[in-house]
């Protein structure tokens, strides 16, 4: 079970995201439409994945992405873009987003993307733990 932070300016979208992800997976979803709150949450709480829209009035998704990555370099960011703004999505990928999906999307698409991210997250953690073991184990 992981913790996901979802950020979008549309409250409808947020409720749907929460409803869907919590309905179909064991992950917990925290939502906000407020970038200040998003940053605050990222500072104070631990998340495995951030789901964020890129284009939101009053908030730059790319900035949030960079903030999240500074906060925790291992934190995965899954970017949601509106149809027709692929350039921004690519820019987000270049800045370290894990993946992106285009709105509107199929339920399965989102669930698969989250699943993929969570598996990756698990592998990275395992890898780190093994490395620590190895380093600790060698004299």
């Amino acid at each position: 079970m992981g913790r996901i932070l979802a950020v979008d300016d549309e409250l409808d979208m947020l409720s749907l995201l929460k409803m869907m992800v919590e309905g179909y997976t064991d992950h917990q979803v925290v939502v906000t439409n407020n970038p200040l709150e998003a940053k605050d949450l990222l500072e104070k709480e631990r998340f495995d994945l951030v789901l964020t829209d890129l284009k939101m009035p009053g908030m730059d998704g790319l900035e949030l992405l960079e903030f999240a990555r500074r906060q925790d370099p291992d934190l995965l960011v899954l970017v949601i873009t509106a149809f027709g703004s692929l350039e921004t999505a690519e820019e987000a990928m270049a800045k370290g987003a894990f993946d992106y999906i285009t709105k509107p999307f199929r339920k399965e698409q989102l669930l698969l993307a989250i699943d993929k991210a969570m598996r990756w997250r698990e592998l990275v953690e395992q890898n780190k733990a093994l490395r620590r073991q190895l380093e600790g184990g060698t004299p």
Partner: protein
Amino acid sequence: MKVIKRSLRRLTGGAPETPPSARLASRYAQFQRLLQANNRTLALMADMEEKLSGDYLFDMAYIRAAVGELRQETQALAEALDGLGEGRYGHLKEAAARISREVEALLEHRREIPAGPLVLDLAAVELTQAHLVGGKAANLGEVIRKLGLPVPPGFAITTAAYKKFLDANQLSQRLTELLKGWSLEDLDTLARVSEELKAIILGARVPPELEEALAAAYEELCRRLGERPFLAVRSSAVGEDLAFTFAGQYVSFLNVPPGDLAARYKDILASLFTPRALFYYKDKGFNEEELAMGVVVMPLIRAKASGVLFTRQPEAPERDAILVNAVWGLGKYAVGGKVQPDHYLAAYEPPGEILEQVIPPKPVRLGWRPEGGEVQEPVPPEEATAPCLTREHLAQLADWARRLEEYFRKPQDVEWALGEDGRLWLLQTRPLRVQTRRAPSARPRLKQEYPVLLDSGKVACRGVGAGPVVLVKTDEDLKNFPPGGVLVSRFTSPKFVTVMRQAAAIITDAGSVTGHMALLAREFQVPTILDTGKATRILTPGQLVTVDADYNNVYDGLIPELLEARERRDSDLADSPVFQTLKAVLQKVIPLNLINPRAENFTPEACRTVHDVVRYGHEYAMRELFRMTELELTEAGEVQELEADIPLKLRLLDLGGGLRRRRRRVRPSDIESIPFKAFWQGLRSMPWPKPAPGVKSLSSVFVKEEAEVAQGADPWRDQSYVVLSRNYMNFSIRLGYHLSTVEAYVSEVLNDNYLTFSFRGGGSTPERRERRTRLIETIIDHMDLQHTRQGDYIEARLAKYPLEKMCGRLTLLGKLTVYTKQLDMALFSDGIVDWYIKEFLREHLNLPG
């Protein structure tokens, strides 16, 4: 001749200085623009419908963008038709604009605060009044009236009261202005702004009218109870999902003295202005409809114990068991985390049987102070470790749970209280979110143990249906369509909408998944497979079949496991506001009212939906194009002649891309028009009679029957015209006593493709005309054309077949054109005609004679 030309010109409204061919070309360009708009609109409609399938997540931005594009495309379509019809279709433009406005209005007013009383007795509230009283009060009203479960008597303060409060204090304007003035730089500022706004609300005055209504409602409550209770005041927001995201939690006040009711009411309204909501309003402006608040007022139940009842376990909803939490005293501690509550898992059957229980010590409870308000109290040690509930209580809760689930058809999250007198009360109920399990394993694409009849085609609407095959060839077949039948047809037709409530599934030989009928099939959720190429030949009337439109297979016989596995819709998603908005929009987009082009109400004024506009536009575009070429062909000056070794003089008018050269005379190898090339191939491949030496006119070859001459009619002059472009042709041949026209549009886009064939006989004797008409009708029927006949006028049509198949039909029509011309001499007996029919079918359609 000049006089005729002039009058023709007047008739078509053309300016004399514009050469007819240029006008034709420009109007043909309008036709193409119309086709483009038609296709874009249909594709958009299909896309929007797909979003309603429950498989997608979308937001308002999507709906707004889609609606914007729809408006643009329908407008373009109406304008193109008006251009094509030289200003005669202004009414369609008006209809398109009217409908676009109606659709857009749906986006602007997502919620409305309905007019209504300021206060309503809970027992009088209906579920449909959720907008007036909020979700919580609406559910309670339903529980009281429909289920008769014990709910304390009480009243709802409506959203009309909320609006009155805002209006009386001009709060909407004030809040919007205040929000504009602030720049929200950090969370501290935001929190401060939030506090200031709350202070404004708390400082505002409850209008006297509302205050009086509250007092009167309280007095009525006292009269019914025979005492003057303190109150429980709970928020009841409209649009709970949105409220949930906004506010996070509902505010409630317990043990409120009656004199404080108005003040607590303001507290509840102020609780709407969380920092999260502020950010939203800052961006979009404060909108009172967005989150209207109702309030539920009840006498406080002085609870011995309270808690929460889930009618299912959220993580294991398939198990028939209720989950109950309980604490001593008032209910806030059951969810507040102050004490660890009792935990019970109890069976539905036998009712209340305890499957699991955990009884932690509960050293404190929430009590009530005599002067109002709550207070934490210690619990005596022997009570602290005892369970709050007995098996009898759990049995009663299990009975509620069963009845609530049966009625609301969804798991419920219930708050209850156990009164000092031992009575259980239901305080609120709302839908419970449970885990939707993914299908345990996707079923195989193909059930190999069953015989597959069809496995090709395109799915227009997913789902599974089964029933007896019903072949539909004419409108008459639709009238007699049996409930539960599987509609099988060569073609798609919007007329099928008349039986979509009865049909178990639809299968066709041809058709497009973004066509009119496919849109309707999705609207009615009929499993539909199109473009199978051969359904009408493979399936026989009455045969039982199972149509699996999830995986595009049709099986012989009924397959129960496929029918049982039909997927259920995700209803949680369907209840969300954005989903409801799209649904409302599509109600103004998809339904088709203009079904029959021959009906009297097939008019722009009768258009009610975007679909109607598109249908009307496309139908009249084809008519206009046909009419225009007929009228103006004779006028066109810049015609080219086709030089070929058959005795048929053809005059060609190229509207663009139809011929390789712009010379006076062209050869068959110069033909680039896709439909005409195919048609020409047919014309050319038949044996043509050689004209006698010295005879110039082809008519003189054919027209020699004395019987015909005896009719006294002058044969038409030998004039055959072809208007063509790369994708279009209109071939009209007047020969002897026949006038036949073949018109076609053939391209890679399935939706655009159509051909029409019309034939008018004339001359000759009634028996001979009858025979000729029968011959044509029988042959075109075998070519899958839909046809109608009036006297010896035949009209036939075929649409939405793929390019190669369209070309195949055109080649056949070319052959048929020559064939019928030659037959005039042979129409002297029915037997001979039968022979000729068989001959053609055998030779050219490879059918057994």
